[in-house]
């Protein structure tokens, strides 16, 4: 048996609907016989009548409705059709869900699923990675699963958490990543994972870039270079301790993310390591992000726009020469 990252997301939702009557799924095209633009909810409307609901194209109201339902004890899962469109819901997510517990003492347990990141041919409005935007604001947890196993367990955990969770699922991984079976347990939320051990360089990454980083580590291993890859799993909270411990072993740090370069998750990692672990570093920490332009449509441009195994290898070699 093999199960994809996308199937893991569907299975997690099926389990949540089965196990917890407070759960419902709310989003564009998630219901009926359609089951979502990517089929992440395929068959669920039939299996769980009245609990997988199609909505109008109204991202603000979709999240607003989820917030109101969560205040009344429900555990809504919102599917944004694409992460990019969550910009329409920013107000409800940041200003409403993100502030509510702080202001009133009443948490808002919503899970917002964001089909994130680029695939070839998707262009500027169907390719964005929004994790850095959401991580910037208080009151939200931002998950960025990079494996099939994490896609499954972290979504289950997201719904269990009493606070709002932004769950960034990567579209490039939907079909590319496969596992033999779904896990029963996982690392606790908020804990990073050493995805590959090494002693020469630490690459910190998450989501699809974690897979690119692993591929680049394979390539470098052929040259006898041992790269340690840290999978952040959640960009917020950010597991600084695991990152620092890895940098203590390797002395070199490269951070790789798919969101735009100004600020963001990779900048945050470097800021923390530099301020808290400056003495651990044998070379200037480096980072790789997408380019500071909108995301291009054409495959040849798209491939060059975001980090990939090839330019991660080049950057790593440069860093190892220092």
């Amino acid at each position, binding site marked *: 048996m093999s199960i994809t990252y996308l199937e893991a997301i569907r299975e997690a939702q099926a389990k949540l609907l089965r196990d917890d009557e407070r759960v*419902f799924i709310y989003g564009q095209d998630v219901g009926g016989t359609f089951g979502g633009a990517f089929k992440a909810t395929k068959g669920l409307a039939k299996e769980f009548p009245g609990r997988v609901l199609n*909505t*109008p194209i*109204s*991202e*603000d*109201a*979709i*999240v*607003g*409705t*989820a*917030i*109101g*339902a*969560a*205040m*009344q*004890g*429900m555990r*809504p899962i919102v599917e944004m059709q694409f992460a990019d469109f969550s910009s329409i819901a920013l*107000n*409800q997510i940041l*200003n*409403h869900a*993100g*502030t*509510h*517990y*702080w*202001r*009133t003492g*009443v*948490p808002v347990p919503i899970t917002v699923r964001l089909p994130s990141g680029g695939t070839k041919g998707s262009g500027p409005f169907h390719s964005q990675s929004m994790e850095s935007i959401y991580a910037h604001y*208080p*009151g939200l*947890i931002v998950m960025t699963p990079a494996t099939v196993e994490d896609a499954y367990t972290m979504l289950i955990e997201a719904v269990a*958490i*009493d*606070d709002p969770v932004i769950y960034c699922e990567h579209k490039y991984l939907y079909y590319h990543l496969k596992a033999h079976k779904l896990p029963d347990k996982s690392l606790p*939320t*908020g804990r990073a994972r050493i995805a590959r051990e090494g002693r020469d360089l630490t690459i910190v990454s998450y989501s699809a870039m974690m897979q690119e980083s692993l591929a680049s580590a394979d390539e470098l291993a052929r040259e006898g270079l041992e790269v340690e890859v840290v999978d952040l799993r959640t960009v*917020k*909270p*950010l597991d*600084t301790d695991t990152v620092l411990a890895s940098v203590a072993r390797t002395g070199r740090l490269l951070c790789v993310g798919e969101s735009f370069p100004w600020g963001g998750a990779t900048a*945050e990692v470097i800021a*923390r390591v530099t*301020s*808290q672990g400056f003495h651990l570093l044998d070379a200037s920490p480096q980072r790789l992000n997408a380019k500071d332009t909108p995301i291009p449509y054409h495959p040849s441009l798209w491939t060059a726009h975001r980090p990939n195994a090839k330019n991660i290898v080049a950057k790593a070699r440069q860093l190892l020469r220092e």
Partner: protein
Amino acid sequence: MLQTAQRTVKSKRKKGAPPHQRFLEAYRWMLLTRTLEEKLVSLYRGGLITGGVYIGKGQEAVSVACGSFLQKGDIFAPLIRDQAGRSAFGEPLLDVTRTYLGSRLGPMRGRDGNIHRGHPRKNELAMISHLGAMISVTVGALLAKRFKGEKNFVGLACIGEGGMQTGSFHEGMNIAAVEQVPLVVVATNNHYAYSTPNDREFACHDLVDRAIGYGFEGYSLDGTDLGACLDVIGGAVKRARAGRPPQLVVASVLRLSGHGEHDDASYVTEEIKQQPFARDCLKVAEQTIVDLNLIDAETLTKWRKDAVAQVEEAIAAAQKEPAPEGDKEDWCALSTRDLIDHADEDG
């Protein structure tokens, strides 16, 4: 097809026959509100309130009607000029004075101020400043009640004509009708969005005409007439509770204050102040009480004194209470303590 926009331009109430008990009860909440807000204004002018003071002067009749027909289990989403409605819904005066005066013991504990307060656990939602946002949140609360199998509940969300021009309002109204939740939206057209008059806010003939476009039933209302407010808003709540489509009530008033107390409202024209909707609803209600001899002058005087005493007591109590302190605050925006992110080395 839904039957929509059953429109009544005027209340069907026969002049001279208000339901006395509810009318008088509503009037007392209006009186208390006016007394409280006048006191808050003087505290603000005396430098004793930090931030802003936003009052509902001229809108108390509409607002009190919003709070008057809701029952235990109903959802209320008041906005910035809804002190009267909040009080009628059950908000203690102490909540107001604690929030305005920054008491650590208030519902917002100094973390948020003035009109952003609420008690979500008691179904009084805590508004955010971004207008229109509360409509869909109220829809969600009602949807949850339906999921949980509760019966006989309604939600009432307040908005102004300013907030009606946001995308969030549009999305919220539409999704309310799609979900067919028992929602009443009461929109008070006070003729100014801060300083901007109606002719720069919208270009439709009458805001209530939007009801049919959303799949709501729509009603117009003279918001200066307490009897009409009770009739029309009470009717809308009753119809929503009975399973009719969502209800939109558009009330016409003039805001008899600035946007906030920092604003002298010098942009309000003399011409508009002469319009029938510019009447002071509190004075109109008092005139009705006098004309119909609903209570005697002595009782009215006693009610006024009672209102002053209650307000003074609530202010004095809040003034004695401790303020929040930065070094005692837990600075924690998540309820899940072990998922707090520690950006600084010292956590």
